[in-house]
């Protein structure tokens, strides 16, 4: 659950590539599979709420702990709620939460990472050391401490994901930026009088976008893992809201008599994370972000 995925870090901007008019991930069946899956999940996440599946929070919609059947496709939970709409909601919240967290992570880390590369000296030192310290915190323990401080629930999970995913991403962005800041075009821009804002925005940002996007994709999968791990420990989303992780958590007690309560959301969660990972791999290959490890 820690912010691993160290391999897909990178240096260097995507090299000059001819414009591609192919389908995405040309010749990469697995990544395509991942993309399809991901699109499927996202469709469910976005449009699932409009499907006539019933209210995910309505208790007593059926007998308690009923097995999947023709009427209740995914069975019911311990409050007699239909699980199917809860799964749909779970997919939505899992993606929403992890996605939001990753967007925040990306925004923060890209800015910090670029600054750490552009400004040498104290600023860089502070940023990199800060990242190191965060990195030295065992991830889930950090999340648990945080959940204790801000209380279990989405905000805590969100902050945890950001704090846990940021250090690695800062490093990746910094490494990528470092290889860009000394390039001739940046020096030329500085000589021409361009200020830091322009250099970061116009010259660094687009050139580190590749590694940043790839890393963000991996961060998304880590975020989903973290969110679900926290939820599993009861520190993430609180019922009746559902995320895939909290559904597993809710169902865990009933594993012996109602295994579907765990197995269905568990499988969906695995598939969702896998889809994200596969797409990340595909992006990494497509953007040719080399797997250079980022070291402290």
């Amino acid at each position, binding site marked *: 659950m820690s912010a691993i995925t160290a391999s897909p870090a990178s240096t260097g901007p995507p090299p*000059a590539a001819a414009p591609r008019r192919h389908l995405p991930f040309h010749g990469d069946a697995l990544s395509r599979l991942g993309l399809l899956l991901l699109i499927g999940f996202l469709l469910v996440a976005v449009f699932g709420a409009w499907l006539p599946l019933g209210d995910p929070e309505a208790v007593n919609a059926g007998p308690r702990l009923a097995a999947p059947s023709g009427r209740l496709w995914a069975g019911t939970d311990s409050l007699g709620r239909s699980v199917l709409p809860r799964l749909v909601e779970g997919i939505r919240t899992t993606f929403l939460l992890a996605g939001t967290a990753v967007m925040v992570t990306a925004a923060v880390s890209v800015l910090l990472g670029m600054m750490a590369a552009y400004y040498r000296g104290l600023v860089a030192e502070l940023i990199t050391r800060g990242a190191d310290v965060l990195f030295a915190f065992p991830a889930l323990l950090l999340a648990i401490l945080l959940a204790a401080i801000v209380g279990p629930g989405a905000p805590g999970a969100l902050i945890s994901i950001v704090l846990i995913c940021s250090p690695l991403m800062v490093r990746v962005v910094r490494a990528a930026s470092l290889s860009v800041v000394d390039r*001739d075009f940046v*020096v*030329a821009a500085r000589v*021409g009088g*361009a200020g830091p804002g322009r250099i970061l925005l116009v010259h660094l940002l687009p050139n580190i976008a590749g590694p940043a996007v790839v890393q963000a994709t991996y961060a998304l999968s880590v975020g989903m893992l973290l969110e679900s791990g926290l939820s599993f420990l009861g520190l993430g989303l609180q019922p009746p809201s559902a995320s895939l992780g909290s559904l597993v958590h809710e169902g865990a007690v009933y594993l012996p008599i109602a295994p579907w309560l765990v197995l269905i959301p568990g499988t969906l969660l695995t598939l969702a994370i896998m889809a994200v990972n596969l797409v990340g791999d595909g992006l990494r290959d497509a953007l040719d972000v080399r797997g250079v490890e980022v070291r402290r």
Partner: protein
Amino acid sequence: MSVLDHGPVDPAPVEPGRPPVVSARDVVVAYRTGHGRRAEQVHALKGVSLDIMPGQTLGVVGESGSGKTTLGRVLLGLVRPTSGQVLFDGLPVTGRGTARRLRGRLQVVLQNPDWSLNPTLHVWRSVAEPLAVTGRTARRARREAVADMLVLVGLDPALADRHPHQLSGGQRQRVAIARAMITRPDLIVFDEAVTALDVSVQTQVLNLIRDLQAERGFAALFISHDIAAVRYVSHGLAVTYHGQIVESGPVERFYDRAEHPYTRRLIGAMPTITKPTSTMQTTRPVSRREKDDLP
């Protein structure tokens, strides 16, 4: 290209009363390397003085590590001299308020054609960027200025909408030159601007630089380790060795009258292709001792 003068470069007559565009006085640059006990200083420049007159190109040659790049950076204000002074138009190039004053008046063209342009920007955006920085040209007028500039450096204005990866190395270097010239700067530093180019393309670009200078009259610092190339574009020449200028003067003297032994060796190491030296003796390895004996 028709606008350009195809004739030989005439060393622009130095008007007596005109001050130099940029002048360096006893510039010392020391880099700190290493940390803690291992910290030491590398003197990249050890008291260098020079003037560059308007419309003149000063060529700088020297072996790797002799301080050429550092010299260029110091003149551009990218590196603060450890001691000594760099004056641009009579005022220091580093310090408060210089950024605004110098905006658009200094430009640089660097070595690596792969890295000379931001790969994510269209050519015209790259070329127009210095205009955007100075903010003196209206947004709408920029594109036109870019098109003119591209024509001036011998490129089809239609290339303006391409990305750098769709250009050849020579084309990219031309674009970089266009970018450097668009603000009509007073000084352009060329640091190994043609080193990475193929022979044929290299000469194209060298010719371009000569022609443009004759037309636009900017002052230039042309840095290369290839004395042939430097000699070809410069009015005056300075030879750096171990952070110092060991010999300088008008370019003609570097064809046959070079005095300093190091300079002579530089010229000697450049064999003429029509009269291949039959033995290897002329370039016998320089022993360590001998190297150290040089000033």
